């Protein structure tokens, strides 16, 4: 089709006008844009969609209370698609093109590692809401999930306390489980625990009969499970059909929270312990309000979990830092953040000034027949984050690896 010159120029003018008005709204409006970057498709969507929901709830709450610095927060939602290069690409888009004040996002360590250089290069802020393997402390990332000394080490303390000293390690084959298991092995060596086996399977792996055979033959007191995503469903189903029980061989998981329990089938996992900092049943006033608000927004049958809560906290903590700084400018927010303490659903959360992680209370829970998790142990008070495990003599040398 030929386009006549008058039409063409009219189109051009319209296009230019559209650009102009766009730029104008961005500049003059009473809005602060933030990015939400999670996997909304692919293997990780099962977990990450709920974190995005919790972050949207936090944004709504802040906006209903008048916003920050008198401006409304506007979320720009992107899909990381369970694909690590996509995370880096979308992070770049959010920072460079949308010019967001902060990004809340990621789940797997692989996605965080992919995004890290982007945020460091453009000096932008990432708030990462999931427990991870530690040994990292980027000046441009705030870690609102647990680091190892707030989840994995308390989990090991719990197993030791229960007299379960012969452990089998099962994990997905990527950075989090492999680093976590290095730490677990160092802990075991220093605490008289025995590691009977260490097995990894690719993400999305569903055939666990061989691995279950290996575990059953080794007859461990407990299994430490760092599998991620859908693999957990296959693993627990096949472990149960092989005759293993939570009494004879508890499987302590660090990546299974309330919303994964339904998919695994509560009859396959009830009685097994998990290690987190928060459960839907955690008794704090802030949690009562959070659970109520989340169910009101997304449905009464929805559950809340640790990473969701950490994502929800991230938005509130960031908003608090922005208020304190009086600006959304990254360096000022970073400077204002340390020491900010809020009463959150998981209890008191304080931003640590040394490493931008949070002080968090560790909690061990047992999965109940109703699908919720009942706390059986906690650390009493919030634990200072120690991503490089500098306070643990047995961990010397791990950070260099």
């Amino acid at each position: 089709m030929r386009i006549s010159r008058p039409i063409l120029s009219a189109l051009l003018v319209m296009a230019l006008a559209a650009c102009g008005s766009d730029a104008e709204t961005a500049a003059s409006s009473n809005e602060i844009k933030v990015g939400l970057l999670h996997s909304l498709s692919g293997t990780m969507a099962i977990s990450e969609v709920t974190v995005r929901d919790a972050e949207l709830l936090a944004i709504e709450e802040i906006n209903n209370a008048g916003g920050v610095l008198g401006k409304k927060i506007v979320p720009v939602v992107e899909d990381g698609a369970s694909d690590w290069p996509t995370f880096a690409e979308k992070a770049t888009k959010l920072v460079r093109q949308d010019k967001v004040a902060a990004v809340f996002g990621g789940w797997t360590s692989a996605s965080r590692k992919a995004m890290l250089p982007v945020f460091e290069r453009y000096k932008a802020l990432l708030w990462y809401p999931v427990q991870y393997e530690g040994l990292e402390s980027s000046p441009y990332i705030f870690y609102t999930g647990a680091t190892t000394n707030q989840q994995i080490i308390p989990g090991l303390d719990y197993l030791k306390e229960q007299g379960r000293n012969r452990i089998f390690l099962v994990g997905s084959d990527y950075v989090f489980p492999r680093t976590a298991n290095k730490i677990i092995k160092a802990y075991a060596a220093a605490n008289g625990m025995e590691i009977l086996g260490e097995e990894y399977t690719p993400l999305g792996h569903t055939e666990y009969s061989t691995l279950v055979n290996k575990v059953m033959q080794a007859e461990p007191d407990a299994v430490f499970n760092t599998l991620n995503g859908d693999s957990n469903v296959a693993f627990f189903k096949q472990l149960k059909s092989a005759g293993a029980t939570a009494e004879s061989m508890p499987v302590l998981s660090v990546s299974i929270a309330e919303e994964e329990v339904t998919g695994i089938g509560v009859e396959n996992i009830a009685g097994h312990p998990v290690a987190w900092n928060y459960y839907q049943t955690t008794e704090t006033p802030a949690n009562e309000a959070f659970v109520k608000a989340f169910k009101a927004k997304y449905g009464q049958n929805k559950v809340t979990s640790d990473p969701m809560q950490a994502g929800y906290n991230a938005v509130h903590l960031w908003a608090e830092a922005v208020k304190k700084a009086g600006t959304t400018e990254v360096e000022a927010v970073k400077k204002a953040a340390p020491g900010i303490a809020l009463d959150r659903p998981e209890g008191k959360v304080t931003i640590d000034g040394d490493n931008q992680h949070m002080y968090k209370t560790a909690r061990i829970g047992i999965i109940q027949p109703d699908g919720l998790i009942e706390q059986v142990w906690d650390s009493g008070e919030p634990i200072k984050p120690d991503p490089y495990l500098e306070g643990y003599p047995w961990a010397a040398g791990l950070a260099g690896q």
Partner: protein
Amino acid sequence: MTAFLNQLPIGLSIGAVLMLIALGLTFTFGQMGVINMAHGEFIMAGAYTAFLLQDMVLALPAAFLVAGVMGLILERSAIRHFYGRPLDTLLLTWGVSLVLQQLARDLFGAPNVQVPAPAWLSGGVGILPYNRLFIMGLAVAGVVAVWLYLTRTGLGRRTQAVVQNRQLAATSGIDTGRVDMLTFFIGSGLAGVAGVALTLIGPVGPALGTYYIVDAFLVVVAGGLGQLRGAVLAALGLGLLNSYAEFWSDASLAKVIVLAAVIAFLQVRPQGLFVLRSRVLT
């Protein structure tokens, strides 16, 4: 030693899972040469059918119908316009698979759902739980049914005739379009049946199909296109290889070993275990 011996039935049961997911593909890919990347999503449709019905026995025929009809719609509306253009078909069906995954996510939500295993399937004999034996039984039944269909029924013989020489079959009065439809219906339906069985051992979520699709193609390619006995042998062989490779190394390395073995094997026999001899195809 027990662990070592245990791997034998485990290998056979992995082989049965492979056979079940590849059975439908021996029809659509093996017989018709259609590279259907949405095959995994038909498996997923079967699994969600089981979730909706919450009854394994009822779900088997229902899933066959649901997945079969989905396959029929896909074949009639899109694939038939792309016969003889394998690369276009590949892209088309891959796109369809993404659409179906998102559809499942919108309909059922992103988190996995749970299909309760029937009580009569809890327990087991030795290392093999009843649900594994059930899958093995289903795989055997599926293979026998497909074999009977292809060799003992008029429709099946017509299918084979079309595969061997489409033009000659058409001139002999066979409505090749109808045969294509039926073949695609059965192939997709079998994927649905596999989906129901997989709810016993694996996750039921929107991404389910992606976990099995590569293995399914591997079996059909290694077995030889359109060769039922080839697919059976390939499934069992790959199952055993997987079982022992993982036993001696780990799951990641076992995947590499299996893939390398198939590639090496295809270097020696590019057309798989068994080759369909036909003037048209050569």
